[in-house]
């Protein structure tokens, strides 16, 4: 079956196409060359005047696994927020959603309705990976995948403390990717989750873990090297030390140097860009962070923008979340130590535009977005649901694309916060082409999805069609059409066909003899068998809906 998307205005940064009128042909879920004139076209969509982009890719969104399920259990009242019709904050708009903990079905539906065709769970705890994949398997419509969390797991920390060679570390990291069916590796508060179990309450980049006597810097060096040498596309995903703490920008700046120039991705960098200036000892360090980001070409970052209203923060960072729990709203939280593997902290938050700190957090995120010179190295996220639910993306896109809308919102903020931000002095407005880079081409590049995020021949036909509107929020809230693997799945912002998507993974080669020591470790110290730690392809595909896609390595660099 051949489908023709005719006369659309193409925004395809991967192919350098910036609003070019062009036809797209789809066959068997793929974008194909123009067929011969004799071939019958089954369906033609006339897209004259419409904006056509690849399906959007959320490279950091907490959509699967224990933390979010704990949040759902703890916060049944959140399910009611789906019914809210009144804006939650002064600058909310009708398209702002406060559904912070959607069930898996709603997660898939809300994503595809906005034209997103893939989302990546950034914090799969290896021991909890089975649950993450169960939840992602029950998330319809979109492709998914995840990053496995390492760096506070005792197996790795023991290796590092024992000064095991890099090859052994690499084998373990690769083994984890296989066992957890992940596509990347994440480190959260390097060493800090473990240190908290030893009653350490803070861990700086060059401070030693009290038991292992190794520093976060050493952890970052070891893991970024492993990821690089294994040759997977996704750079090490780094949630820095000192999340949310005033003055943490210095840790963030120093972290950029911890990999000796090897690629690293600093996630939700907004939460790590705080200074200590002013009466309230809390200020924007967006300028310093942006300058460093622009200069350090080996660093990529996603913003983790906050937007106002009720949400919940769910993080592997038990150390910092325990500290943040005093700000919980409503006043409850879950903090867990988990399996000598990691931990988690789930703390509900209500970001208020009249609160000094929250208002400044909002401005800091936007300052970082607007100061980033290279849209290929910055990514659009709210760290769903930590900064705001992912359903707020259209609102965020309008803030980036529409200066007067942004300045009107800014004028409604806490006045002390306004005085501490230079946001209104920034004139930049993102273009459609730049939005397509951040949410499509760049994200696909970063994660290593070579056949997604672009509209070139051979690509998977994940395609979103919008009506070009001045109100960018309205435009990005409700695409005219979304095609998933060539099938029309959304029409006028509503799902017309339910599909299930695939799971993207990376499985670099490794020395299987790593399992010998692992088995001994599991037998002695763990409470499950090594074999049960591993998730087989069958577990993902057996229900007849899911499938596993393995992405090719980049060439190993060693």
């Amino acid at each position: 079956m051949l489908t023709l998307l005719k006369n659309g205005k193409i925004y395809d940064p991967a192919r350098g196409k910036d609003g070019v009128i062009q036809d797209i042909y789809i066959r068997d879920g793929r974008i194909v060359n123009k067929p011969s004139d004799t071939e019958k076209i089954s369906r033609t969509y006339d897209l004259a005047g419409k904006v056509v982009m690849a399906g959007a890719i959320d490279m950091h969104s907490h959509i699967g696994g224990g933390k979010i399920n704990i949040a759902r259990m703890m916060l049944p009242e959140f399910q009611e927020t789906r019914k809210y019709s009144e804006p939650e904050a002064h600058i909310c708009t009708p398209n702002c959603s406060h559904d912070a903990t959607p069930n898996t079905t709603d997660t898939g539906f809300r994503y595809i309705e906005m034209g997103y065709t893939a989302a990546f769970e950034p914090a799969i705890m290896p021991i909890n990976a089975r649950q993450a994949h169960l939840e992602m398997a029950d998330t319809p419509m979109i492709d998914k995948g995840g990053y496995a969390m390492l760096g506070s797991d005792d197996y790795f920390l023991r290796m590092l403390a024992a000064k095991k060679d890099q090859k052994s570390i690499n084998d373990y990291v690769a083994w984890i990717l296989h066992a957890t069916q992940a596509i990347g590796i994440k480190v959260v508060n390097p060493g800090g989750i473990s240190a908290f179990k030893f009653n350490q309450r803070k861990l700086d980049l060059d401070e030693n873990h009290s038991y292992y006597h190794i520093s976060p810097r050493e952890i970052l060096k070891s893991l970024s090297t492993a990821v690089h040498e294994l040759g997977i596309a996704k750079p090490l995903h780094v949630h820095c030390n000192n999340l949310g703490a005033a003055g943490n920008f210095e840790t963030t700046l120093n972290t950029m140097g911890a990999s000796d120039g090897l690629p690293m991705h600093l996630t939700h960098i907004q939460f790590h860009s705080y200074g200590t200036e002013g009466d309230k000892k809390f200020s924007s360090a967006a300028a310093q962070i942006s300058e460093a980001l622009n200069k350090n070409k080996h660093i990529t970052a996603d913003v983790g923008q906050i937007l106002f209203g009720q949400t919940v923060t769910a993080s592997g960072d038990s150390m910092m979340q325990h500290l943040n729990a005093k700000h919980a709203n409503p006043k409850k939280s879950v903090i867990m130590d988990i399996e000598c593997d990691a931990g988690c902290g789930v703390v509900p938050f209500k970001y208020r535009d009249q609160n000094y700190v929250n208002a400044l957090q909002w401005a800091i995120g936007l300052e970082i977005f607007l100061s980033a010179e290279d849209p290929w190295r910055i990514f659009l996220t709210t760290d769903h649901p930590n900064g705001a639910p992912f359903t707020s993306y259209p609102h965020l896109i309008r803030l980036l694309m529409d200066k007067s809308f942004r300045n009107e919102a800014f004028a409604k903020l806490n006045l002390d916060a306004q005085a501490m931000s230079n946001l209104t002095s920034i004139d930049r407005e993102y273009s459609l082409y730049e939005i397509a880079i951040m949410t499509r081409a760049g994200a696909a590049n970063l994660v290593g999805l070579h056949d997604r995020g672009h509209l070139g021949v051979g690509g998977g036909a994940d395609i979103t069609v919008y009506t070009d509107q001045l109100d960018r929020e309205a435009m990005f809230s409700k695409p005219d059409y979304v095609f998933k693997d060539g099938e029309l799945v959304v029409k006028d912002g509503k799902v017309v066909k339910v599909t299930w998507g695939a799971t993207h993974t990376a499985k670099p080669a490794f020395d299987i003899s790593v399992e010998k020591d692992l088995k001994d470790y599991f037998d002695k110290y763990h409470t499950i068998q090594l074999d049960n730690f591993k998730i087989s392809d069958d577990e993902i595909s057996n229900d007849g809906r899911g499938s596993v896609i393995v992405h090719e390595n980049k060439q190993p660099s060693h």
Partner: protein
Amino acid sequence: MWQNCTSMKITSSPTQPTTLTCPACGLLCDDVLLTTASPVAVKVACAKSVTFFEQTYSADNPSFGIPSVAGQTTDLNTAIKAATDILRKSNQPLFAGLGTEVQGMRSLMRLAEKTGATLDHMHSEGTVRNTLALQNSGWQTTTLTEVKNRADVILAIGTDIVSSHPRFFEKLVWNTESLFNKPVPEVIYLAAPLNASGENTQAGISPAGTQPMVIPAATEQLPEIINALNALANGKNLNIDNIAGVALSSLQTILEKLKAAQYAVVVWSASNLKFAHAELTVQSITQLIAKLNETNRVAGLPLNSGDGDTSVNNTSTWLSGYPTRNRFTNVKSGGKPEYDAYYFSTKQQLENCDALLWVSTFNAHQPPPDTGAPTIVIGHPNMQFTRAPDVFIPVGIPALDHTGTMFRLDSAVALPLKKLRDSNLPSLSQVTQKILDILSC
């Protein structure tokens, strides 16, 4: 030596005996060894586990595995059709029991969405006490591998632990190897329930013979006792000698031990707290833990009750947004989930429902409650009834007759269940799907 491992299949090496994952309690031990497959025999297993795996065809039950309608034996298709007819006529069905694992619960959720059912688990009285505490103030908890490697003080409140989770001490407390060379843990029992021979605290005697600290008290007195502990932890003076018969000095000792520990673990079993508003006692325990964590490391470990309660609760939560005691309304427009921890209980809904679907796949001895409503039982093939349900559909037992997925008591770990034998029994998911197919016709 470098091989390109593109997939790691879970297979057991033929030279080693097969290990099984045991669903008989929330510990989900996966080191149980299968010695023979037919009939199933196991070792490295507790009595509960042996009973579970070695339950087989019962010679004295001629109706083993045979479906029935109105007490008369019939074939599977007839029974499924009869069950479908009951559900089709029902406006307000109750799905209760829910003794199943993740895959079974997934299928039941689909059926509940289609039929507008209310969902409640057979052991939810205990679960809900924890859930309410979680929803009121949250908690700070830990998981089994942390206990095994870190816990140097174990405080068991209102439970002996081993009655419900037999290998707890063997596997997690008296282990000789641990990651951080911790000392042999100190064990404290507070208000352990009595059995015929006193408290069942033998499991808390260390291999070297060190006796646990045992503080007897009636379980119903725990609200006062825990509140007193909290008061002491907050530096309050209590001008009394004892609380509910427990010497204040004993409570002081508990507190000192918790504070002196590197990593203390407080264990409770909500299903044992059988008194009004026990959720407040759970909350009091979690507040004590929170207070101590201001300066020390202490973590809670809530035990579960079994029959897949943790699996069912997790699955329900990600699929509907709510833990159990939930329901689907507006069936025609796709099914909208609702939640009410009180009103959607089996007890309340038995008075309102016009059909009961009772599920118990692990356990032959969990019969449905009495109700005037038409009753369908999908259950263990060895279930026998004093009063025959309108429809009985025997299904395979997860971890014996078919594969499955199960959550451990700490919710952090989910493990695959294996299939050990070929039976002609359908799985719960297959039966449920068949009902859904007929309903969709």
